[in-house]
Every structure is written in C-alpha cells, then in structure tokens.
C-alpha cells in the first residue's frame, strides 16, 4: 500500500531514539489523572 506521507527518519534511527525513557514534564504535577471525553454529534 502506498502512503501519502513523505519519508522521515528511518525505522532504525527512530527505534534507537525511542529506547530513551520518557521524562516527567514540569508543571504536570496537578493535572487530573482521568479526562473524560465529551459528546460528539451530527454537524
């Protein structure tokens, strides 16, 4: 299947970078754990 998106980093490059664990984001301490999604509808 062809893809409409242009090429980016190779899979190998990305996998090497993805091995780095995430860091805590400053200013996120008080964010609520759960955010409930809202109601969509006909437009």
């Amino acid at each position, binding site marked *: 299947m062809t893809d409409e998106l242009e090429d980016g980093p190779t*899979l190998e490059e990305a996998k090497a970078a993805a091995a780095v664990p995430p860091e*805590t984001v400053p200013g*996120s301490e008080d964010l609520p*754990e759960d955010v*409930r*999604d809202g109601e969509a509808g006909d437009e």
Partner: protein
Amino acid sequence: MTSPQRPTFLIEGPASACILGGKSLGWLNCTPLSAAMGIDRSTLGEDRISGCQVRDEIEPSDVVGGTTMSQCAAVAERHGVQVERHTGPNVCTPVYAATQLQAGRGFILQGNTEAIGKANVNHAVWINHSGGGTLGHPTSAMVYDPWSTGPAVWSWSKVLAFAAALHPWGEADKRRLGPGKFYAGIFPDTEPHFHSRYSGIAASPLPSRKTATAPVGRKVNARSGPGTSFSIKRMLPRGTVFMAYQTTRGQRIEGSATWFGDHDGGEWIHSSGLR
C-alpha cells in the same frame, strides 16, 4: 518498504450506533473507538472489535457520558495489547510520543476539537503513523479521527494544537492543557511487520532484500504458496529484487525445503531462485 500497519477505520455515531444498558452512547465513544483501532493495528488485524464492544467491556460498567483513557486502556490490555499510559502527572512530551510513533507505535491522543474547527468537545483520536521531518518532529501524521469520515493527514502542527486544547478539568472549565504535554496511550511496536501465511516466520533481517537468480534467459517462479502445486503468480527475470519478509519449510527442491514469502504471504519463491 511497506508502510505501517493500518487499522480499519471506525466511525463515531449516530447515537444509536451503540446502545448499552438502554443508553444511546454512539456519540460518546471516541476513546473506545480509538482503542478498538489501536487493538486492530497492534494485532495486525487479527483482533477487530467495535468501539461499542470496547465500551461494553469496560469494568466496572460505565454507560454514563464519555470514557477515559484508563478505562479503554484496561480493555486493550485484556485483549493482550499493552498500553503505555501518559495521563495526569505522567503526561509525556510531544517529542517523546512522536519518537515512539516514528519507531512503529501508534497512540490514542486526547485533545479538544475547538482547535480543529469544531465545538468545545474533549475528544480522542488514533494517531497511526507519521511522515517527514526529523526525530521527534514529524511534519505530518495519519490520523484516524472517529468524528470524521475516514483517516486523514493532519499536519503535526494540527496534532499539537488539538492536544494542547484539551480541557483537563472538563469542558466547562476554561483551563487548557497547553503546549508541551500529551495525554496519550501508546500502543505496542508493530514495525516492521508481515502477515504470516503457511507458518511463515520472520526473515532475518526483516525484510531481507534478495534478487532472482534464474539462469540467463530464464525466470524464477513466484508462486501463491511454498510448493510447485501452487499457481505461478509472476515470473521474475534474473536480477529482479524480491523483498522477503518470511520464510517457511515447504516443498523440498534440490535438497532445500526453504521458501521465502513476501509481506502478505501471497508470493513464495524457493530458496534456489534467490540470493
């Protein structure tokens, strides 16, 4: 090289699309729909369930209003699909999520549709893969937004704006998440992938670039299965490239039972015809 695995698109609505406990939840299922697409993608299409089924599997049962990332991630995990959850104090950076995406992991992203031309509605979409740019900074993404008519390319700027517009304390609260944070549920790595047929196992490396080795003037047969009883699908002249994604033990020819298969397992070439 094939593109990343894609799920079947699941559309949200109408209200009657999902009735549980007498409640019409069809417009309140964006996260379950996104999770269903995530399960589809992560199992390479082997486990395809509806968003309504994901909603029905939430424990304890919840048929009031919308749902949360945690509720839907738990359903995915009961389907054997682990979800790396980033919500609340554990939100991740967009760069981290983008890097995971580029490495082969799709994710559910929560945001608010006021950033994309709709009303103030907290919403969730499935981000399947990205394109362009550099590590952690793609230029675009293929987004499966249930509240749309199908998968569509979003600029990465649009993805960032959608995420930053999330109202973490509810739609009635004016506070927004802001830039630099994603509420995301990151699914397992599926890339590179192949679809095993005839007991095919992954080629090493995956994929393996091979070329047809027919004698001059002759061609190598690519068959529909690993044996000469299978139909010939095409004939490869000497030097034609064949990307092998899987191998299997099939009919023994000239002392070897090894056959190489393509991405979908629809074409097979005996090892004597490739190098």
